[in-house]
């Protein structure tokens, strides 16, 4: 947030406006989609009618049903083609957010309608011989007047739909541009290298014959986080708490449902793939499983060189040298470049993954459980490597892991997540030595003791039950179903992530420092 008096009003207004614009843009986007899909249905019905001979000739009370109902059936290919072209142009225009293309689509449909009207209106004396066939008066392909009239109606409906698509696209585009401007203005004021505000990522649950959306998985549900340059922020939590989804949403490998992401002075929440490409160069990711994240058919040189190639900076010797240099940086030798991933051990593969992430000199690297799949004796090697790389290149890390000892070792600050929300955040000493949220306390106390003589000397908080389903999270505080401190207020009011006198923010109405790692004399 801005601190100077002048900017404050503007920023607040912009922030408020942002929500409105976003809602408007999303509504328009949905409207465009609906218009397009109904036009597709109309055109499809025409097509089906055209290719179903019995429907075309079927008669009820002497009226040719097919021809009458579809209108276009008798009119031949031309109407159908025109309709398909119109809808496709509309879709392309909508997708590329260029309303002119959609407008051209509308024109095509209008032209077809005009043609049909011309045929219908042509007097008997004028022999209108159009590729469409002849008008009913001339005994042409369109044999019933009703058929021709319906052709006209269909064409007009599609044409108007495309006009609507074009208009919607234009307004949507304007809304997006407005959003973009607002975000760009706001981004300049944001603290930290990376800032996330009220980020929400839901995944639809689809079921039934038509794959209708029956619910939402609340994977990330309103997360605020600021990451400062050069720090390591640890994200911890149990499986299903949304830590991986959060890290992928930051990279926009998963589209956020709502919320804002600001990175290095840019608001990237709604950026598309093309615009994200240069941003991705600065934000890289190292995946958990070094066996699944390296293509087994590519040599190490190709794997590490791929980001360079995509960025267009691989050309000739320069790329080769860079790959060799990267291999040395992560403690492998350049001779390894021509080998395939299966020739390496888990630890070495993870080094290759790190080298690939480093290739484009990123500012931020998201480390998604980078050492969980490695053997104990290898973990320390990779952790040390990551730390020395951070010092050498001034990297910023987002370290996602469930191993609390490793997170303590690497992180400056730690955020604890539970069911899609951050429940506590603070520097590592605050989180490990003075945790204020009951979940953090339970999590820490659940870690096995470090040394056999401590057996029975640590207060153990054993949580009841399991993590509730993220499809249907509990009301109020999400941890209340397993919390020993829960009161009626916990079910009614969601606790905000604020400092309640413990020195760092915790999302608990009854936040209170407990030291679960201290030994109690026995």
């Amino acid at each position, binding site marked *: 947030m801005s601190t100077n008096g002048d900017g404050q009003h503007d920023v607040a207004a912009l922030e408020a406006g942002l929500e409105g614009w976003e809602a408007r843009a999303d509504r328009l986007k949905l409207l465009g989609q609906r218009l397009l899909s109904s036009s597709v249905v109309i055109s499809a019905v025409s097509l089906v009618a055209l290719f179903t001979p019995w429907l075309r000739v079927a008669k009820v009370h002497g009226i040719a049903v097919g021809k009458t109902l579809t209108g276009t059936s008798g009119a031949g290919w031309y109407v159908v083609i025109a309709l398909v072209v119109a809808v496709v142009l509309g879709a392309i225009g909508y997708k590329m957010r260029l309303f002119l293309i959609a407008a051209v689509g509308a024109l095509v449909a209008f032209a077809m309608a005009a043609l049909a009207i011309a045929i219908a209106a042509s007097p008997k004396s004028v022999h209108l011989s159009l590729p469409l066939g002849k008008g009913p008066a001339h005994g042409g392909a369109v044999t019933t007047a009703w058929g021709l009239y319906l052709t006209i109606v269909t064409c007009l409906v599609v044409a108007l739909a495309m006009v609507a698509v074009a208009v919607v696209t234009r307004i949507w585009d304007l809304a997006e541009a407005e959003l973009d401007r607002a975000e760009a203005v706001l981004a300049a004021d944001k603290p930290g290298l990376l800032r996330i505000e009220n980020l929400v990522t839901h995944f639809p649950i689809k079921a039934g014959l038509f794959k209708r959306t029956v619910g939402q998985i609340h994977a990330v549900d309103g997360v605020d986080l600021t990451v400062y340059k050069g720090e390591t922020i640890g994200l911890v939590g149990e499986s299903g708490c949304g830590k991986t989804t959060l890290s992928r949403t930051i990279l926009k490998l998963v589209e956020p449902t709502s919320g804002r992401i600001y990175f290095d002075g840019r608001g990237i929440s709604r950026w598309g793939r093309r615009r994200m490409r240069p941003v991705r160069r600065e934000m890289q990711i190292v995946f958990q499983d070094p066996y699944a994240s390296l293509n087994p058919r590519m040599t190490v040189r190709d794997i590490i060189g791929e980001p360079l190639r995509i960025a267009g900076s691989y050309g000739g010797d320069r790329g080769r040298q860079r790959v060799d240099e990267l291999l040395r940086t992560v403690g492998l030798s350049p001779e390894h470049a021509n080998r395939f991933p299966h020739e390496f051990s888990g630890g070495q593969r993870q080094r290759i993954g790190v080298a690939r992430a480093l290739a484009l000199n990123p500012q931020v690297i998201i480390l998604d459980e980078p050492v969980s799949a490695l053997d104990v004796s290898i973990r320390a090697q990779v952790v040390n490597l990551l730390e020395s790389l951070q010092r050498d290149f001034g990297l910023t890390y987002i370290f996602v892991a469930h191993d609390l000892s490793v997170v*303590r070792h690497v992180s400056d600050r730690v955020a604890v997540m539970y069911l899609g929300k951050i429940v506590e955040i603070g520097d590592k000493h605050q989180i490990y030595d003075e945790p204020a949220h009951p979940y953090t306390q339970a999590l820490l106390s659940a870690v096995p003791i*470090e040394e056999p003589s401590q057996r029975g000397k640590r207060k153990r908080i054993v949580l009841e039950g399991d993590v509730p389903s993220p499809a249907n999270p509990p009301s109020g505080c999400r941890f209340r179903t397993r919390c020993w401190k829960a009161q009626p207020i916990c079910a009614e009011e969601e606790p905000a992530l604020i400092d309640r006198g413990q020195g760092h923010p915790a999302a608990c109405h009854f936040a209170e420092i407990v030291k679960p790692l201290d030994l109690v004399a026995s």
Partner: protein
Amino acid sequence: MAEPLLSIRDLAVEFRTEDGIVHAVDGISYDVFPGETLGIVGESGSGKSVSTMALLGLIPQPPGRIASGTAMFQGKDLLKLSPKELRGFRGDEVAMVFQDPMTSLNPVLKVGYQLAETIKTHYPKEPDDKVKSRVVELLRLVGVPNPDARVNQYPHEFSGGMRQRAMIAMAIANSPSLLIADEPTTALDVTIQAQVLEVLKTVQEETQAATILITHDLGIVAEMCDRVLVMYAGRIVEAGDVLTIFRAPRHPYTVGLLDSLPKLTEDEEWLRPIPGSPPSLINRPSGCAFHPRCFLTQGRPRCREDVPELRDAEGAGHFAACHFSEELAGHQSKFSEPVQAGSGT
């Protein structure tokens, strides 16, 4: 010392692969005493699982082969039993809890049925209603809430932690005298892991079964075990009681393993990793398999030439397989002094 419940001597297991013979377990000997918890720690590929699977005839043969060894249990050699005789032991006197509860329960059978099956296989004459009440009682013992309803549910209706509890219930169904738990909590989250470990402790108290706990997590060993075997490349490199191993390890691998762990309660600038990576079990380094990664060898030829035997180290019942373990005399691991108040027991 009491009579051992299980006595393994010179057990060797090999696997034939396209690349050569993998010596998964190479001549290990150990005893398990009644009522104790023995931890076997090691990295993946150290042979810790294979050594116990061999006891229950769970090694697929071929490609596996038990090359040598005896495993005396209640006066019988488990390795020489016919499949039928072995079936009599498996799930009755010796039971196993596997790592992955998702794949070790049958998804199309009700949990209660699967538990009852374990009992019925060994005691077919047991009346049905008695078996049923036993099943409910077992589920209650392992802390499954509402066991009367849960017996009629399928594994997919159980969460990961609940499934692992059901697996434990199944293992103790016939009150075994030896329980083998192979990475029982690796697939679980820490809060669930804590629950399951609590259950294992309760169950042990209840059944007085000796337990072999296989894990790579030294914290679990510290928490649960009485004695520890440290395995490296198919051999036991150190054995002893858990306090001694954590405080004063006498094998450089154990020293390195403990040093490489980050501490939950303290800040350290750098971790001290073990250099290199675990050896291939096809081309195991000559002599001591750990010598290429060892800080103690200092190029001495003996490490390369002679395979070190497990021999007495400081303290009763403490053994280490290192030619130069005396040089570690007086070494204390970083886990040797408690961080906060309260000294050792």
